[in-house]
């Protein structure tokens, strides 16, 4: 089977994010970047499925030259080849989904795996748009029944279960009140949640092999997608600084404050 997985470049959550004084965006200098953690989980799940059923994992990233670093990371984890949609400048979720649609139509995968959201803008939209554009079934927030410390996890059993005939995929989804299980016809779009798997570390031989794996370059023009943003970010601002807490001497005072000041109980 063929699996297409996204690998977005995002700010490393460990770096200090500062909003520019004029509110036009965030300060880029000194920032570190990595692959969106949800996408990394997607790459891992794709690799496990390909190991079980045979086939190929193709990673795709959209952005300037620098996103090749995230593609190489996914290739070092074991993905077979990469597609890079070369575009600088902002893209909204509709444009991203439009580009991915064209890549999917070109690659014809059995499954597209995306992160449920990317940790920069936290939009949680691209997977859903993409499924709609392609007219495929979708399962968002794919999760796992067992814990991430389980034997299954240690044995790297895929959480997404492909049917014996290779025509369906069973997906456990994390929803507000627990877990829901869906069976989708393939091809399908799946988005990953945090508890789907623990991604592997890129091995050193993997890193070396990644150097010679192919990265195909595409552009919005070549794909025939109009990426003019329909959404515009007007202003960014930092959240107000949190006020310092207070210490209370005992539980009785705490309960009293919760009841009479915070009116929480």
């Amino acid at each position, binding site marked *: 089977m063929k699996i297409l997985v996204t690998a977005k470049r995002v700010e490393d959550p460990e770096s200090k994010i500062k909003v520019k004084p004029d509110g036009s965006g965030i300060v880029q200098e000194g920032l570190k970047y990595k692959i969106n953690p949800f996408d990394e989980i997607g790459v891992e799940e794709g690799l496990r499925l390909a190991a079980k059923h045979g086939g190929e994992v193709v990673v795709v990233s959209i952005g300037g030259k620098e996103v090749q670093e995230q593609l*190489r990371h996914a290739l*070092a984890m074991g993905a077979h080849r990469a597609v890079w949609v070369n575009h600088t400048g902002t893209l909204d979720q509709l444009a991203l989904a439009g580009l991915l649609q064209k890549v999917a139509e070109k690659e014809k995968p059995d499954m597209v795996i995306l992160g449920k959201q990317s940790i920069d803008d936290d939009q949680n939209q691209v997977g859903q748009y993409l499924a709609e554009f392609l007219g495929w079934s979708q399962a968002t927030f794919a999760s796992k029944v067992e814990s991430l410390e389980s034997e299954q996890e240690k044995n790297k059993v895929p959480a997404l279960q492909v049917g014996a005939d290779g025509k369906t995929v069973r997906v456990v989804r994390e929803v507000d009140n627990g877990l829901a299980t869906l069976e989708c016809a393939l091809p399908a779009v799946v988005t990953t949640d945090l508890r789907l798997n623990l991604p592997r570390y890129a*091995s*050193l031989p*993997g*890193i070396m092999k990644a*150097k010679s794996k192919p990265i195909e370059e595409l552009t919005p023009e070549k794909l025939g997608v109009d990426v003019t943003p329909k959404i515009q970010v007007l202003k960014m601002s930092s959240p107000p600084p949190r006020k310092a807490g207070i210490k209370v001497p005992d539980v009785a005072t705490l309960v009293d404050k919760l009841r009479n000041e915070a009116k929480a109980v």
Partner: protein
Amino acid sequence: MDFELPESHRALKASLKDFCERKVKPYAREWDKDEKFPMEVVRELGQLGVLGMLVAEEYGGAAMDSLAVAVAVEEIARHDGSLALTVASHNGLGTSHIRVFGNDAQKRKYLPKLASGEWLGAWGLTEPGSGSDASGLKTTAVRKGDKWILNGAKMFITQGTVGHVFVVLALTTPEKRQKGITAFILEKGLPGFSQRPIHGKLGMRSSDTAELILEGVEVPDSQRLGELDHGFIDTLKILDKGRITIGALAVGLGRGAMEESVRYARERTAFGQPIAEFQGLRWMFADMKTEIDAARLLVHRSAWMADSGQPYTQAASMAKLFASEAAMRACNKAVQIHGGYGYTREFPVERYLRDAKLCEIGEGTSEIQRSIIAREIFKG
């Protein structure tokens, strides 16, 4: 001129950073306290390819370069000097001696298992009576037909008990002294070959150190490594590269000491302000940062010289000398900045200080490094 690491080296650094934060950092203190060799984590490093960094692909290695080893060892030493010493000595000494000077049969037999970490490698040069004066070794190998009989003892051998493959230097033509020394590959379990673990080290406590005892150990001539009587000359080449790695280890420890101190100094208050505000401490931070960066530049330069085929003996000694001493200064300051808390196991900086001391001793003491640097200055 470009000071940016190549992309593959950045990827290696990122991968090991994540690995160490999850699998090493939370446990290093316990390992140190209990002198526990973390076999499981070492095996995982093997699966990641960290134990075969310099080994060619055909033998299951990652086929990387000395700069990659330096980057990896720094990243591991950031959290655990002992584990970094395991990785450094396995890659740089035992495995490298076979990789560089072994014949095809030896490479086929040993390198794949050393690269995967199934077997750990050790390297025995030092003896109870000879360390700096390494060519003064007394272990002998006497030829008997197609066999060699080895007798003697080796001291302070890293991976001495957990290792499976031992490269051991012995006198084969005693009257020729350093031109009469040959290397042999021994495997654990040979009759007459025993190991005595050494406990109670000041630092590097979860690195495995042992004395090797050779009492009539018999090996066929096929276990001879490299040319007859050429062992000591080969050894010097192995040590040159090893020194770059010990320099990287020191950089990792010094960096760790600094990063921990920055965090501590921001949080700890005295006289109504964070101690990070006191000029007396700020100057310490300035020195730490400057010296650690300078040390890393020396280490990376010597690795680059080695990787690009230039003579690097002097550069490697300079890198090891400066990095080890800079790390000692940084770790000492880190304990000072932590005040009374720095003097306890609650904070890792006292461990870094104890670990860093080894860098001034192992693979050639600082005095020996100075001798080498000066010898190179006045050469020719």
